[in-house]
């Protein structure tokens, strides 16, 4: 027996249900020959069935479930994490049916689930945790005498684990269970567990050495408070202060950070922000709104060692980023700027004297987090409509970014973050009219940035070249209207160097450069200047891009080139008087590309062509050189116009390519081709080129792409032959349909048990 990667499946059709049951019935009885994967499949299949169908209705069905689960829990198979995961998931899904709780108890699943609360596999831990949670909730809602007390026993067991277990992972999972339970049955838990004891225990765990445990305990505190807002025994602010005084600053700050999450925001009144930004203020030596001296001292003491300083600063930056994402300004732009300088090797200013510089210098995590915050700040000011203006440190921060970007041995991810920041920074500068020569520094900053970008476009790391060329594209896309930026791009040859990146050795860079070329080409000044400087014509450009579509070894680059050509066509006149026949020839050839996304792109191109040809009264600019277009120039009788248009589509290879794509091995390609042909066919019907309901009986195969010059009658005959509605319906089925109808799959699995038919097995992918 073999399995496939289709996953489990369910069905409700009686015939198929029988087949499934037949399969599942066989599973426990063929244990010696089945490998673990088949068991995993069987249990997952059962889980899928249970999701939609009560498998505990008849003794026979109950037997199948019991037998399968019992077999799966045998030692040899149980050691497999995917089996454990599948069994726990199955049992959890089953719990919604009557009698399931009894069955779970009978199968000793509670014991197994408790054992797996600290499983090495996170998936198993998660499924066991969900099962225990579900068991307790089911028990609470089940009013039968026999099972109604189970939740009490389970909560007690969980409580025992929390109080006495030495297994940190298990305790953390139990805390997660309590977090889930508090959402639904807070009162039930508090009936079993004294709230004071509970909070005391949480308090103890928050202060433990394990970061995971303290984080989960802190979260549980929040959940508890949300469920019991009136409980005055838990004052979150005092809790945070106590944590700081007891040296658990990172836990306290994590708690503050969680309080900023939307679901807990009502529990605090702005004070977590003050706590969160405090480490940044201390590290940067800027004393703004200090907290009470005790807390200030506690934070300062906690960051006196490198690892703690990095951790606390990281949490602080995470919180600030969170606040910024919510549109709040934590008023620490200057501090953030100072922090960035502290992390930078190149910075030679006053921050050199900070005692924290030796901890923070060139720490990539801190640098990235700080840059993310800076980006959020810029976005915040960019989106600000109140006109409060930008902070004084803005120009300095931009200067810092440009200076640091010039450092040769910068990590590629940091370069990428810096470029991300620079884009809104330049937009901001434009918005606030800072780019004019009167504002000192900006021209220098831009000049330096131009030189640095030039080098980065030729960087040793392709990732940097890629992010730089994308940056140039984005700048051009969003800021090229600004005269200064437009001139700056041309002055520093960023347009010509971006064009050179189209020839880069790395496919991602080529793809990025092609997208940038698309943006550059939208600005006439830049585009024309690029062609003059590089001494190339538009024809050369198009030919180069067509060469990429035909010959590039990487799908990314081919797709990007195709997108560019498609966009140019869609945009209108870019390809006027260009080698249009070469473009069509390349597109016809690309219909046979190995990459399905390229083929999809080709169909999008043809879709645009069809739209333009069929919708316009006059010929599009790119079609004026075609032979067939001569018939279209007013000499053709009106009734013949549509036929001429179709004739033109045939002559350029469009119709041929669509018919070829209908038989593609990739479903999405077939679907797209069907959609286009359906549109075309409908228009042909409307214009009387073909007759409705008169499907030809011709058995001729569909024409092969590129092999013949298809004539209009042949094409019309071909689309008349095709039952496009049926094809479209077939190709519109998602892969979910296999999950909903796994008959073929089951047959395959069952059939493969017969050795003599082994050769007939079909590889499904």
């Amino acid at each position, binding site marked *: 027996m073999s399995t496939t990667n289709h996953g489990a499946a369910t069905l409700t059709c009686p015939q198929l249900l029988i087949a499934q049951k037949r399969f599942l019935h066989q599973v426990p009885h063929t244990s010696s020959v089945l490998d673990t994967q088949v068991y995993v499949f069987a249990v997952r299949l059962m889980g899928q069935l249970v999701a939609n169908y009560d498998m505990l209705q008849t003794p026979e069905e109950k037997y199948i479930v019991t037998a399968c689960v019992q077999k799966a829990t045998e030692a040899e198979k149980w050691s497999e994490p995917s089996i454990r995961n599948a069994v726990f998931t199955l049992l959890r899904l089953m719990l919604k049916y009557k009698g399931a709780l009894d069955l779970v108890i009978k199968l000793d699943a509670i014991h197994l689930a408790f054992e797996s609360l600290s499983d090495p596999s996170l998936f198993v831990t998660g499924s066991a945790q969900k099962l225990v949670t579900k068991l307790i909730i089911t028990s609470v809602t089940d009013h039968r005498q026999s099972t109604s007390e189970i939740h009490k026993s389970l909560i007690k067991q969980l409580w025992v684990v929390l109080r006495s277990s030495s297994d940190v992972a298990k305790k953390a999972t139990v805390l997660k269970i309590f977090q889930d339970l508090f959402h639904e049955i807070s009162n039930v838990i508090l009936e079993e567990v004294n709230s004071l004891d509970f909070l005391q225990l949480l308090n103890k765990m928050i202060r433990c050495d394990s970061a995971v445990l303290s984080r989960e305990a802190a979260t549980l505190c929040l959940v508890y408070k949300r469920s019991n807002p009136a409980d005055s025994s838990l004052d979150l602010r005092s809790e945070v202060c106590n944590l700081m005084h007891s040296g658990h600053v990172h836990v306290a700050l994590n708690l503050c950070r969680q309080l900023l999450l939307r679901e807990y925001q009502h529990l605090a009144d702005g004070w977590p922000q003050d706590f969160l930004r405090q480490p940044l203020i201390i590290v940067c030596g800027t004393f703004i709104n200090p907290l009470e001296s005790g807390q200030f001292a506690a934070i300062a003491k906690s960051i006196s060692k490198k690892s703690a300083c990095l951790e606390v600063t990281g949490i602080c930056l995470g919180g600030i980023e969170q606040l910024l994402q919510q549109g709040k300004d934590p008023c620490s732009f200057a501090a953030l700027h100072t922090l960035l300088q502290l992390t930078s090797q190149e910075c030679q200013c006053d921050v050199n004297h900070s005692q924290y510089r030796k901890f923070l210098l060139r720490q990539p995590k801190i640098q990235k987090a700080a840059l993310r915050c800076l980006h959020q700040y810029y976005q915040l000011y960019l989106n600000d409509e109140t006109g409060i203006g930008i902070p004084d440190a803005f120009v300095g921060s931009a200067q810092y970014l440009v200076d640091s970007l010039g450092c040769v041995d910068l990590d590629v991810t940091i370069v990428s973050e810096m470029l991300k920041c620079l884009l809104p920074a330049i937009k901001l500068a434009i918005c606030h009219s800072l780019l004019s020569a009167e504002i000192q520094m900006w021209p220098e900053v831009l000049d330096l940035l131009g030189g640095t970008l030039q080098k980065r476009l*030729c960087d040793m790391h392709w990732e940097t070249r890629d992010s730089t060329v994308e940056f140039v594209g984005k700048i051009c896309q969003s800021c090229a209207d600004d005269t200064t930026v437009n001139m700056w791009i041309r002055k520093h040859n960023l347009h010509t160097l971006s064009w050179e990146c189209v020839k880069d050795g790395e496919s991602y860079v080529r793809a990025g450069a092609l997208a940038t070329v698309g943006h550059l080409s939208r600005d006439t000044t830049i585009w024309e200047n690029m062609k003059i400087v590089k001494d190339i014509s538009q024809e050369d450009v198009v030919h180069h891009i067509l060469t990429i579509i035909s010959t590039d070894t990487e799908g990314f680059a081919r797709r990007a080139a195709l997108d560019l050509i498609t966009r140019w066509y869609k945009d209108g006149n870019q390809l006027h008087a260009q080698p249009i026949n070469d473009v069509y020839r390349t597109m016809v050839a690309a219909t046979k590309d190995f990459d399905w996304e390229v083929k999809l792109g080709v169909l999008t191109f043809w879709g645009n062509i069809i739209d333009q040809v069929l919708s316009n009264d006059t010929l599009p600019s790119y079609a004026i050189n075609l032979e067939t277009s001569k018939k279209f120039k007013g000499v053709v009788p009106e009734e013949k116009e549509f036929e001429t248009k179709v004739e033109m589509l045939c002559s350029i290879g469009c119709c041929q390519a669509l018919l070829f794509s209908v038989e593609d091995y990739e479903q999405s390609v077939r679907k797209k081709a069907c959609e286009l042909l359906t549109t075309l066919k409908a228009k042909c019907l409307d214009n009387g080129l073909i007759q409705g309901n008169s499907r030809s009986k011709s058995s001729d195969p569909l024409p092969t792409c590129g092999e013949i010059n298809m004539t209009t009658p042949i094409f019309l005959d071909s689309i008349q032959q095709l039952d496009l509605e049926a094809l479209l319906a077939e190709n519109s089925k998602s892969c979910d349909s296999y999950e909903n109808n796994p008959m073929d799959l089951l047959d395959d699995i069952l059939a493969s048990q017969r050795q003599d038919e082994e050769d007939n097995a079909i590889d499904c992918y």
Partner: protein
Amino acid sequence: MKLYCLSGEPSKPCFILKFKTTTIMLDSGLDMGSLLNFLPVPLVHSSRLSSLKKWKPNDYRGSGKIENELRACGTNVFVDSAPEFTLPQLDILDLSEVDVILLSNSYSTLALPYVTEYSGFKGMIYATEPTLQGGRQLMEELVHYVERMPKGSTANVWKNADILRCLPAPIKDAANPLAWKQCYSLHDVNSSLAKVQMVGFNEKLTVFGAVTVTASSSGYCIGSCNWSIQSDYEKICYVAASSTLTTHPQPMEHSPLRNSDVMIMSQLTRTPTVNPDAMIGEFCMTTALTLRNGGNVLVPCYPSGVTYDLFECLSVHMDSCGLSQVPMFFISPVADSSLAYSNIFAEWLSQGKKSKVYLPEAPFPHAELVNTGRLKHYPGIHGPFSDEFRSPCVMFTGHPSLRFGDVVHFIELWGKSSGNTIIFTETDFPYLYALAPFQPLLMKAVHCPIDTSLNFGQANKLIRDLKPRHLVISERYSHPPALHPHRNDLVIETDPKTIMYKPGSVLNLPIKRTYERVEIEPELAASLVPTEVKPGVAVAMVAGTLVTKDNKHVLKAPSDPKSKVDGLESGRRYYVWGELDMQEFVSKLAQHGITDVKVEDSAAGHIVHLPSDDTLIQIEEGSTHIICEGNEGLRVRLKDILLQCLSKL
């Protein structure tokens, strides 16, 4: 033990070590900084250079004709003459006394012909094969460049102190130009290098039997080495240009340099503030940027060393940037042999490169680059080069001083376009001064110094690891570089045991020689009767004749037995030793009839009282006194009895 420091430039070292009876020269570096004071020698007539204004001091009243010697270019003044070099201070001592010259790398060989030719030198020269071949290539290239376009006259008047002080900086600061010498000839090079004996790493070589010298890999360039000079009881290490970075040569060996009495350290990096990796990245980026903008890249370089790494890194980066079609040219009179030799020195290369030989592949990718036509090499710009030359390209050529060689031609050719770039990677010459005679220059100049030798951090770490008893360094390494006066990390951490030298210093190295090894002839050794004086230690009396020959000492049996020293045979003198056993002594006294014996313990030993003879014997560690009131007969008897109780040697 003395150390003579002949070189004024720590990166071009030349020392003479007098150790035991030998005189050893360590390296023979040539300071070429003086070249920058001369006008470039173009390959074809340059109207710009020849039309430079002649220069003479305003208030010059001297008799010498200076008009044709100096020319001004901008604010700089250059000597219009055949180029000259600053030699080590070879006149400090008689070179004919030098027994052996140890060469550490090919860059430290360039003054060798000045040392070995016409100086009476008759010693040995030891170097590894790559050092020999690399040195030969550098010297041949130098001679070729200088002799290719000979200057008709030699300028000497300007060296007059009266004129010199009137000249503008930096030429007026030139150190002792009267001592500068013109380049040697190819004959001298061949004659000098013919004296070199090739050695392998860790091969022990004796110098007149007095010391053993051993080369160990220094990781700086192919075949580069450090030297350890050892006698039986002393060890001196000479750490020349070394690198702990992973490049193409065999990695540096530390163990042969450990626990030395004196370690002489030279040739640390001259660009301590820059990281070579970052500079290679900068070099590649700048090259790609220039090429993408349609410009040419000129790289003034030596024909070996870092140039191989540049080929490798740049070709990979150019591939990565889609610039594979751009050719790289390597022009040098020795380009062919340099590329060929580098690929046959597999045993001297890093493990990665060495293992390629077994695939089999060439260790360096430049062999493949040459095969595929991406790297084209020519001896000069004339001949086939002109057929293959196309633009844009990357041009590697010499000389890095920009005063002669094909590089002068390309600066003249490309200097007028801002699209071209000249990238300086060699650190021997300050690039701005090197470019001074070509100003105004439109082509971009980029400085990417790549010096893989030890930086100060690495050197300090190495010193801590090697634990020398005394360290000898240039006094320049004891304070921060002039350009970074506050960078206290850019120094060698000194302690009282650090000895610093200045150019021309003669140092007395604080090694007190205590022992010398002597061999005993087997016949004499067989006659010895060792006596065990304590567990594991036996002592024997020996008499023989000490023969010293070739700094080896051998103790032979005396040729005339009758003349044995001190009559050791007939009237043999014995040495008594050991501790007196009082019980045995008392019993011996009894045997000789002295029975009335009282023994008392004292603070220092024992007191034996013979009441009947009215005699006291004080026995202490190391001395015995017999107080017997003048009874000489009794004293002698007692002495004999006591000696019987002691061990004899």
